[in-house]
Every structure is written in C-alpha cells, then in structure tokens.
C-alpha cells in the first residue's frame, strides 16, 4: 500500500480511538440509558437545537443503507463555568459590576456565558439588550466602540428561542472582541434595536429583518433592504426553500441544490 493510503487509515483509527475515549468519560449513570448497546453521544451538555435522523438525506422511507435509525442530537456548546480565562473574566466582572451599579441584577440580564473556541459569548435577555449595549460602549473599562453588525440565525428546533440575533462588538481601546446573543421566539419575533447606541447597526438590522423577519423595535426605519419591498416571506429562514430547477447534464437529471442528498 502506498504512503497516502496508510496515512488515511491511521487518521481514521486515531479518530475512532478518540471517540470511544470521550464516550467513556461522559457516560451517565447506569439505568439512564435506553439501550446499553448504543454508545452515548459526545458532550451531553449544551443547547439542543435539533435532532437529526438517518443519513444520506433519505427521509421518505427509501433508505436501504441501515443508517435510517441513526439519531443525532445537535447541541451547541453550553454554559461555561468560571474562570473563563484571559481577559474574559475581566470583561465579565466589569460588565456585571456596571450593571449592578445601574440597579440591574446581572443574572437577569446575562442569561449565560459561553466560552468556546477562544471567543466569549454573552447571552443577553432581549429586554435588557439596549442597556447592556450602552454599558458595554460607555463604561471606561469596557469601551466596545465598534459594533460589527448583527447576524441572524434561525434554529427551528430550538423551541421558544427560534430566532437568534448575534452581535459582535469590538473594542479598539483594549483590542478585544466579544459576542452578544439575543433570542426571540418565532411567535413573538421582537428584539429591541441598538441603533440608538450603535448607529452603525442601522442597515444591518434592516438586513436581519429582511432575511429573518426579526423585528427590531425602535429602529428608525425598519424596511426591507436587499429584497424588493413587496417580497413575501423571509428568505434565510430554514423553512424557506432555496429554489432552483433540475439541470440536465449529459443525459442525466441533476436535481436542484436543495433537493440533493444532504447527509443530515
């Protein structure tokens, strides 16, 4: 066998070894598990945003691969316990202190704090977002002067918190970057606008409204920005189809991208 093939195999074995090791660590108490033979999933903590079933995208019963009963729970990284490490603790302390000074209970405003992949995320209760943003901008120890816009994410499986608005704030003074995350349910898609604090977010909030239908209360002119004004629906929600038509290539029909096999 040639060199590359060996390397590939080695990589595979290494991967497997790691997986089983992890599963062993996270094993819950006996009896909790429905079936002893099924290995538990890695990382049982965190926010569940959905459950994926099967493989190869065959959801209509035509799956003959034997992978049809595969169940995968999708979890985003969960809450992190202190210390967060580096300057994260300093920012968290300062933010909590500043909120307390304003008569806010920090644990009411900050739902949870996640440190993942070297970045810190503060999950903020949506009603407190403008206050928190103003504090982050104005407090001398925090000074997050630049808001790099808001990004919407739609998690249809995250019941009651389907729509997420993610803000990245940059501090030029201290050279730091943090992330704020706010959620709203599909039934009540409202988040307060931060345009008062960061005028830079004007167009970005319009963009998120345009694509996700998330209404930013208090925005000076919340209209569609990318799509035509009379467009129906919100294109980047997960239930909005991509569209497209099948294409014929050398006699075969190639389905449109959203109809192709997806490997869930």
């Amino acid at each position, binding site marked *: 066998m040639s060199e*590359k093939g060996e390397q590939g195999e080695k*990589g595979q074995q290494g991967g497997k070894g790691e997986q089983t090791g992890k599963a062993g660590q996270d094993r819950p108490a006996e009896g909790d598990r429905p079936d002893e033979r099924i290995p538990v999933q890695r990382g049982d903590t965190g926010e569940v945003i*959905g459950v994926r079933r099967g493989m190869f995208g065959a959801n209509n019963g035509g799956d003959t691969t034997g992978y049809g009963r595969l169940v995968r729970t999708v979890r985003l*990284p969960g809450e992190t316990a202190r210390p967060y490490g580096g300057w994260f603790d300093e920012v968290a302390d300062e933010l909590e202190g500043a909120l307390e000074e304003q008569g806010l209970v920090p644990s009411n405003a900050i739902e949870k704090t996640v440190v993942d*992949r070297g970045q810190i995320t503060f999950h903020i209760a949506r009603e407190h977002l403008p206050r928190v943003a103003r504090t982050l901008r104005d407090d001398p120890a925090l000074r997050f002067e630049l808001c*790099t816009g808001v990004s919407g994410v739609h998690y249809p499986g995250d019941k009651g918190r389907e729509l997420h608005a993610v803000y990245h704030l*940059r501090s030029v003074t201290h050279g730091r970057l943090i992330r704020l995350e706010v959620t709203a349910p599909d039934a009540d898609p409202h988040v307060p606008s931060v345009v008062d604090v960061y005028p*830079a977010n004007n167009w970005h909030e319009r963009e998120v409204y345009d694509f996700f239908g998330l209404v930013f209360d208090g925005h000076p002119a919340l209209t569609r920005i990318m799509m035509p004004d009379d467009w129906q629906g919100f294109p980047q929600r997960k239930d909005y189809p991509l569209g497209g038509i099948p294409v014929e290539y050398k006699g075969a029909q190639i389905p449109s991208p959203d109809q192709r096999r997806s490997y*869930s």
Partner: protein
Amino acid sequence: MSTSESPTSPGGPGKTARSPRSTEGPRETTEGPVYTVTGGDWDEVVTAARKTDDEHIVVNMGPQHPSTHGVLRLILEIDGETVTEARAGIGYLHTGIEKNLEFRNWTQATTFVTRMDYLMPLFNETVYCLGVERLLGIEDQIPDRATTLRVLLMELNRISSHLVFIATGGMELGATTVAIFGFRDREMILDIFELITGLRMNHAYVRPGGLAQDLPPGAVDQVREFVKKMRKNLTEYDKLVVGSPAYKARLQDVGHLDLTGCMALGVTGPVLRAAGLPHDLRKSDPYCGYETYDFEVPTVDTCDAYGRLLLRLEEMRQSLRIIEQCLDRLEPGPVMVADKKIAWPAQLALGPDGLGNSLDHIKKIMGTSMEALIHHFKLVTEGFRVPPGQAYAAIESPRGELGAHVVSDGGTRPYRVHFRDPSFHNLQSMAAMCEGGQVADVIVAVASIDPVMGGVDR
C-alpha cells in the same frame, strides 16, 4: 436618468404610465403636485421645474449610472446644485450567497464567497476559511507555507483592489490616464493570480485547511519581477495624482467624515485611518501571522477624499514590503493540513486544459488503493463534518474589517454563514459625507468609500 419632483414627498407616487413627453404640467395628488419626467429633452425638464417656485428636485442617480460603482442607487434631494438629502438604495445585486452556502458542503462554499466582493476574492476566501478552521480547531495545524502564501496573495489582492479604486475614481473625475495606468498595473497582478490559481478572478484557491495547490514553477520570480516594476510604477501615480492641482481641487475637503462619525457609523478601513486612527486588524488583532511582518499602518488626519487617496497609495507601498518578506520566508512544504479527513485528496494539478485532477492521483485511487478511492469519494461527495458551534473571524480587507460569522450544527454543510462586509457598513456613511455638498462631490465621496456592490448585496 429619470427625475421625479414633488414639493412634499420625495419619490412619491409618480409611476403611472404616461407618455415620455408628459412634462407639460403637474399631476395633482393628495400629497401635492407630482411631475414625472422620463426621457425627453433636458430643457423641457428645466422649464417645467422653473414654472414652480419650488427648487427641490429628487434625482435618482443610478442604479445604472457609470459612476456609482455598479448597481448602486443614490436618491438625492437637491436644491440647485446642493444636495440637501442623500440616501442609498441597495439590493440590486443580491445573489443569495449566504443562503446558497447552506446547501453546499464546507469546501464548496469558497467558490461562492469568492464572488461576493469581486475586487477582493482572496480576502473573502481567507476570512471564510479562517472561520471554518477556528470551528474545526485546526488553526495551529495550518502549514506555514499555506499561511505565508495566503498573506502574499492577500497583499497582492490589496494592491489590485486599491489600483481599481484609483483607476475608477480617476475615471469618474475624467482622469482617463489614471484609469488606464491603474488597470494596466492591475493586469500584472491578475496575470500572477492566473498563474498561481488558474483564474484571474473568482479563484476558490484558499480552502478550509490550506490552499488548493502549491505555487507553480516560476511564480516566485514573476512576483519578484512585479514588485520591482510596481515600485517604479507607483511613482507615476505620485506624479499624476498626488500633486495634480485638478485632483486637489476636486478631492480636498470633499466627503468629510471625522473620527467621531466613523466610530458611530462603524466605518473601518482607509476611511477610518484617513480620520487619523491607526486601527488595522493586521496590527490590533493579528491573524495569519501578520504580527511577524514588518510594516506600518499609515494614517492621515484630513478626513477627506484626498487623504483617503494618499492613504491607499501608501498602503500599496506597505503591501509591497509585506510581499517581499513573504517571498523571503517561503520554504518548501505542504500547503494543506496533514489531516486527511479534512484535506482535499485530489492534489489538483495544473494541466494543459487548466486546473484539473492530478493524473498520478487518479491512477492511484483507480488502480492501486481501494481505501484511497473510498476516502476520496466520501470526502468529495459528502465533505467533512464540523463540530457544532459558532465562530467569528475578521481580517483587514482593502475596504475595512471583513468578518465571517460561521455557524455549524455538526453537519457537512454550513448551518449559517454571515459576512460582515466592509462596503455594506461603510456605505451607510454616504449620507453623512454628501449632505450639504455639491452634486458633483457626491461622486467623489462615494468613490472615496470605494464600495463594491457585489460585497454590499452579497
């Protein structure tokens, strides 16, 4: 160009089907008289406008206008020659790239993102790949050669982007010599890109984990040659542009935006540095090893279009410095991560018919190794999985902070990718720069922001 005039409602209801020469009189609406003018003689428009004592005219500049950088629509309310209110209408070039990415695997996405801001394709690719690599947790495993080449290509791309800024900006002022010079020099960079990536634009060369392929023979020499030539050519711009009284008269004190305005509007890049703040992510939040390169962040404090021009010229010089350092530290080695579960297996090779599969590789997977064939097939059709979570990567593009917010649900496709495009953010400052100025200065102000609509609309 169409003009609609109304004393009370700019851009009010005036879209009924009427003959092109219906400039005789106003149409009474509930919001006052509305004049609709399409085509016809400009004199008639002027006479019709003179008949009323109201001087305010709403002019749609664009979306198809030679000097608005693609399909940008500027809605200007003008009083005589003065712009009293300016708004930008965008979205004419929206292509749904972010949505499309959710239906392709992680590697295929580079082919889409490279087309967003078409003047900085390599920045788009790199920021996306940095985001994915952060999600994968393989940032430390990217080979040095790949990182150095990324820096090299990004700096070349920065020069080509600034050259287009100077060329098109000059064209908009009627300085056609500058336009020709700019595109002439940019052509040299595009030739280098074609040699290295196979394409002049839309490269899809930077891939999650590294690069699509290594440098072809002769590339280093050609880049060295270019640096030498560009050093010489840059002085031509100094002579043509910097000292030119015509340029100074058109650019100085035009499109004023001070530091406070920049910070409030989230403006980054040359516009911010022309307001005196040396904020450059290459220095303040280094990525791709920029902290190890020796270069300076130029600033000027004029806050106007002229300062932004000088600044970009100086940035090109600094980029040349970085390119030389890249060439000096290039060492042979891999350009893709060693992890075969992520690295694209094909080892693409440049053949006589363009970029294609390497014949050696095909021979191996088809002839000798069944496992390698399976592995190749799985990786190409299914792609690799990325652990759930989100990451934000930001780099300093020619226009400012380019950010990618990448979210994964653990699948083989991105769950959501959002790009914080600097053009999109910076274009918001158009109103602040233009209001109160002359109509002719709107062109200069917009050109000094250097928006690229492919990036604005994505």
